[in-house]
């Protein structure tokens, strides 16, 4: 569904040097990446800020023209046939809405229906499905600017799916959402992928998005593809650790349990690091059995940490 071969994007940046002189710098945003995504796969595309994620997505949607390389989405060259491709893909930008700011949600949808020439039955079926699963019933008559971030995001996702796209790009779809909205969005995406076989490419900062949705992860850094495989493999490569934070009844010396190490003690609270690939359950059981445990929480490693470890 998506085929990328040695894709490159170089920006020319002019910088002032002296009063009149300008020097040209070449900034390599994407430096030769290759991958392919088969139909129906859900892939997480992650990397730190400025790694080239957005640039890749922009080339895959036809917004940006690649400097070189071969690119096909649903058999179409995005840069050359942008508007033809537009009918077959859906795009959600977490930071910006694709809806018309001053119009009620439903008016935006009606306009999309005509713009994309969506057949009546498909439009009504998709709208009904999105309204139900994304809980949009009460929001359809509300102007977009009055929606909360989470509501707007759900509205945007529905808008991107009305025309039955074969590929859905999601750029930070859960950024700034509360726990409930996040769960709703994730649940919806999982069902979409399972029921309709929509190919999904997801960029995110939130590793739990990937954990809950994607079997496959691609990591990009400095414009290069650093990792392409499953999430467990990423943890193994990155030797990343999860953190078990425990509150004990009183201050105690550092806990000593096999399979983890105590990294920090602060009064009755202790931080235990253990490999991200391992299960937290036996560890919790052992701690609870041997120490006076009051409360606990498990913290997932964040993307930046994993990547930082990978290439440290």
């Amino acid at each position, binding site marked *: 569904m998506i085929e990328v071969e040695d894709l490159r994007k170089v920006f020319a940046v002019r910088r002032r040097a002296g009063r009149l002189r300008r020097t040209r710098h070449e900034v390599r945003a994407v430096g030769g990446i290759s991958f392919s995504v088969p139909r129906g796969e859900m892939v997480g595309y992650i990397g730190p800020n400025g790694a080239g994620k957005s640039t890749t997505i922009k080339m895959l949607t036809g*917004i*940006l023209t690649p400097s070189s390389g071969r690119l096909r989405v649903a058999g179409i060259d995005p840069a050359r046939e942008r508007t033809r491709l537009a009918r077959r893909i859906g795009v959600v930008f977490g930071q910006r809405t694709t809806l018309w700011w001053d119009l009620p949600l439903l008016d935006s949808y009606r306009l999309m229906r005509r713009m994309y020439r969506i057949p009546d039955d498909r439009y009504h079926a998709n709208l009904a499905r999105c309204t139900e699963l994304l809980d949009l019933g009460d929001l359809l008559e509300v102007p977009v600017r009055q929606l909360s971030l989470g509501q707007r995001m759900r509205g945007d996702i529905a808008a991107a799916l009305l025309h039955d796209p074969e590929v859905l790009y999601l750029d930070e779809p859960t950024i700034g959402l509360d726990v409930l909205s996040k769960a709703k969005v994730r649940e919806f995406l999982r069902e979409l992928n399972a029921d309709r076989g929509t190919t999904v490419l997801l960029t995110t900062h939130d590793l739990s998005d990937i954990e809950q949705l994607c079997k496959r992860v691609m990591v990009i850094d400095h414009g290069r593809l650093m990792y392409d495989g499953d999430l467990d493999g990423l943890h193994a490569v990155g030797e990343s650790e999860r953190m078990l934070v425990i509150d004990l009844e009183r201050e105690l010396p550092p806990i000593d349990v096999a399979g983890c190490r105590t990294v920090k003690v602060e009064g009755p609270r202790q931080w235990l690091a253990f490999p991200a690939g391992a299960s937290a359950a036996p560890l919790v059981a052992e701690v609870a059995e041997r120490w006076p445990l009051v409360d606990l929480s498990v913290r997932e490693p964040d993307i930046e940490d994993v990547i930082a470890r990978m290439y440290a």
Partner: protein
Amino acid sequence: MADLAAGARGYGLIVAMWVRTTMAYRMSFAMTALGNLLMTAADFATIAIMFSHTDVLGGFTFAEVALLYGTTSTSLGLADLLLGNLDRIGGRIRDGTMDTLLVRPVPVFAQIAADRFALRRIGRVLQGLIVLVWSLTALEGVAWTPVSVLLVPVMVLSGAAIFGAVFACGAAFQFWATDAAEVQNSFTYGGNTLTQYPPTIFTKELVRGVTFVVPLAFVNWLPALHILGRDDPLGLPGWVDFASPLVAAACCALAGLAWRTGLRGYRSTGS
């Protein structure tokens, strides 16, 4: 050609939606359109006041000046109504929402031009038409021929196309300089003020510059001079009086080229 048809269709869809939204508040629309008409009418009143002190200005009578004013005002009004929102493109580029337009199956030009279509701007078109019609009834000593009668609508439409092309060029320029809206306004709105007065009250150099640099003179001066049976101050050959549609077509082609170049540039830098 397919692009053009897709653009026109998309433009129509978006405009229809905004008109529907506007018409949900009929009273508010009527008030703002009227306000728009009155604002531009005040503009014409200054010219009327000038003529209360003198019968001729640069050798032109009040009715003749009204003809110039009416045609150019109608032309600008039409261009402003149809394409006036193109200057929002700078803001769109700055805040990054340009990208959301590029992922829809409608040409970007149509989407930006039609976005927030302001039907109230029809006020200026109406004001221009009123002045134009009045001037046509008030003109004395004009020998109307079938050609000069036809020249009136041709003049108005060519003028609208030329103003529209200038709007489009200005918008295209914003791909490079995102604060160019002001530069463009000095061409369109400044040009509008210029063409409301007879060319003879300005110096020859200014007139020459306007004729050739920004071919706004074709909006109405040259054809209007033909209708009024006068010679133009530059002594150009007679056929240029009829060249407005050609100039308009050339301007539109140039604007189309500028737009394409600008958009291509944007898509290679993304900023």
